[in-house]
């Protein structure tokens, strides 16, 4: 919102706190947000480890952009070149791809200072869309989720792995504010989900293990209902059919009652809802469990579609294969703690499985 549009150079190194009201349709307490649009409590806790590599790569990328000429005798334009470099730079977050994609043409040849905070708005790395800070949920003496720190950026697919009861669904329910955290914060698009319960829900789409729909309505009617409630807009039949088409549902199926649908078809309606809502963040709770391999594969492709549209995706799953295929990062959870985070590009199937099992056994 506030972070986009202006290309003016930020004058100071530190962003200034300003008080803004979010979405006007939603009345809520005013939030202290910095001028990059992120509330104080919603800045991710810094992760150890990746920081050095990240900043090195960033510096190099900025150099490349600044030079604005083919690199190393390659006659590909710098952006494409950078993409390929970044793909190779396995330790770099995929976020940077998006960063590069967003650099406006006219600024490329300018000298760009090295620190992120003084980079022009359009050049600033995008803010994380889904953030958890020391997020904790206890039921009596049982701790369902223990100090989860997490930041998911636009274009990322973060897969939560773990046994039943490891805290995956709890995490998703906390982000949806269906349950209230015992301590810590959950933020979506820079807003705390507890204090901005409704505003944050306008940003996310939720696809549960079983997309439940009204059996007596057709797929099209279901989509129309959920999409118009989510956006407050009217949709034409063609728009809705287009979304269902993008989600892979056949036109003739769209006007059948949902009681005749298979699970895969229901999940497709769920994706179409997310598409119609133009969700910036997706929360998926084991969306592929029980799907046949083809439907599961189609679902992964749809996730890819959502990702290229810039959505940040958090997916709880049991499917290591699917996590490796469609995820950019995976997190392994155990007894409510996030015990390991990995870049999927760093690791093969076999290694992921080995690691996972190691953690489960220990």
């Amino acid at each position, binding site marked *: 919102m506030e972070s986009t549009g202006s290309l003016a150079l930020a004058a100071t190194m530190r962003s200034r706190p300003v008080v803004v009201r979010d979405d006007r349709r939603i009345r809520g307490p005013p939030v202290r947000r910095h001028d990059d649009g992120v509330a104080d409590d919603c800045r991710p806790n810094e992760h150890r480890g990746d920081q050095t590599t990240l900043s090195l790569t960033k510096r190099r990328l900025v150099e490349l952009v600044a030079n604005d000429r083919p690199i190393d005798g390659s006659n590909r334009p710098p952006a494409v070149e950078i993409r390929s470099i970044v793909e190779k730079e396995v330790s770099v977050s995929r976020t940077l791809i998006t960063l590069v994609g967003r650099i406006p043409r006219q600024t490329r040849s300018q000298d760009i200072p090295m620190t992120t905070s003084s980079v022009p708005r359009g050049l600033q790395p995008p803010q994380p869309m889904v953030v958890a800070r020391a997020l904790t949920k206890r039921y009596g003496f049982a701790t369902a989720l223990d100090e989860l720190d997490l930041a998911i950026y636009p274009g990322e697919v973060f897969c939560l792995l773990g046994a039943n009861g490891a805290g995956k669904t709890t995490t998703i329910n906390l982000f*949806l*504010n*269906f*349950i*209230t955290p015992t301590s810590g914060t959950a933020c979506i698009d820079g807003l705390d989900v507890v204090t901005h*319960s*409704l*505003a*944050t*829900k*306008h940003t*996310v*789409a*939720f696809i*549960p293990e*079983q*997309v*439940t*729909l*009204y059996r*007596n*309505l057709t797929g099209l*009617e279901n989509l129309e*209902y*959920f999409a*118009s*409630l*989510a956006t*407050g807009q009217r949709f034409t039949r063609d728009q809705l059919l287009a979304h269902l088409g993008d989600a892979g549902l056949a036109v003739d199926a769209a006007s059948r009652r949902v009681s005749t649908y298979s699970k895969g078809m229901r999940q497709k309606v769920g994706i179409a*809802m997310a598409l119609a*809502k133009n969700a910036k963040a997706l929360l998926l709770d084991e969306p592929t469990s029980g799907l046949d391999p083809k439907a599961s594969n189609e679902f992964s492709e749809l996730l890819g579609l959502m990702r290229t549209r810039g959505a940040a995706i958090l997916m709880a799953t049991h499917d290591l294969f699917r996590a490796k295929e469609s995820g950019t990062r995976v997190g392994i959870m155990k007894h409510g703690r996030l015990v390991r985070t990995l870049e999927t590009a760093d690791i093969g199937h076999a290694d992921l499985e080995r690691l996972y099992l190691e953690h489960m056994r220990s």
Partner: protein
Amino acid sequence: MIARIARKEMTEMLRDGRFRWTATMIAILLIGALTTGVTHYRRTAAERDAAKRSARTHWLTQAPKNAHSAAHYGVYAFKPAMSLSLVDEGVDRYVGVFAWLEAHKQNDFKYRPAQDATVIERFAAWTAANVLQVLVPLVIIMATFPAFAGEREQGTLRQLLATGVRPRILFLGKAAGVSLALGILIAPAAAVGVMALVMASSNTTLGDTWLRGSILTLVYLAYFTGFLAVGLTVSALARSARLSLILLLAFWATNAFVAPRAAVDLARRAHPAPSALAFNLNMERELTTTGEGVSGKALEDSVLRAHGVSTLDSLPFNFAGLSLQRGEEQGYRVFDKRYGELAATFAAQDRLSQRLGAFAPLLATRALSMGLAGTDYEQHHHFAEAAEMYRRGLVKTMNDAVRDYQRGGEVIAVSSDSTLWAKVPTFDYDAPALGIVMGRYLWAFAVLIMWLVGSLALVATVARHVSASTLAEGVRP
């Protein structure tokens, strides 16, 4: 947004076989009750008119006879029915709509303890009012119990809440949807009802019927709205659809069956009324004891003394006529006292029952419904009193005739004076005006408004303050 939700709720409900069947059955029952109501009303109205006319003709054309015998011959008095009585029969079924008026006795109105009629008997008489008071709330409950609890169980509620829709908007949309679906199903019955009322009303009473009908409609709407609000509230808070259904059915059964019965028992305990048998026995005993001393020898002596004569034959009038009238008047005191007490007891029971409507809105609604249809106990009593006054006039006219026209010692004299019969006017009864009826039901009105406002406040509070997380999970007991 609200309209969108309402439309979806309505579509879903109308496509749901169970709801469609229940609602269609209710609509058929309602239309059936109205049709039988109107047929019954028209037939009895015709019979009543005919009977009234022929009774009058019989009275006027009766053979010359002793005037007192004529008073024994008596007349029938018919309580005119309002057209709304085809919607609500009220107590008419139990207390009757006509009285046999004759000399000496205030009789033939069965003064059973007012709400002696049991719930089972009420089922036997299936009127539109029963359907409206008992079955329509059941349909509303069937439509509202799954509103939130059912969606919670299916899982659609979480998805719905994940869209970021305000709980308040959801409440309003669902309320509107259920109302629309019910409206569609009740519309045909309502049309039949209006047609029946128009057909049953004469030109002179049509205006009054419209007014009463409109108030009656508002009364029932308030009654139904309360159920809608309570249904939505329970559904929003109950953790499962089953719990929601059980709670709502318990409330429904309490309101429809337990409360009326309990109200009768409570009212009877607080204001005990004698049984019909005891009442009649007491009355007879009292009539015999008070009758002594004013009739027979004592009266004779005092009359002779007053006129300064020594034999009854020397009196300037027929002593029998005077004696009969004195005896009659002696009875009035007993009647007035006893029936007055009984009426006061019933009125007290009625007032208590109206107030108990705070716990079961059916009580208040039923009272208002009967009141507006002119079939409540109060209006029956009003008619009974008018009939009694008419009877007293009739008997007095006849006794005066005996006194004045039949001189001489021959007590069993025959009157050949047929103009005497015409001296007794026809019995024209005017039902109490709407304002007076309404005045009696202020308590019921207050209670019904309390029910409406209270239930709306309840649902508004829940809708305003319930968080998405509470709504998603339901309230833990």
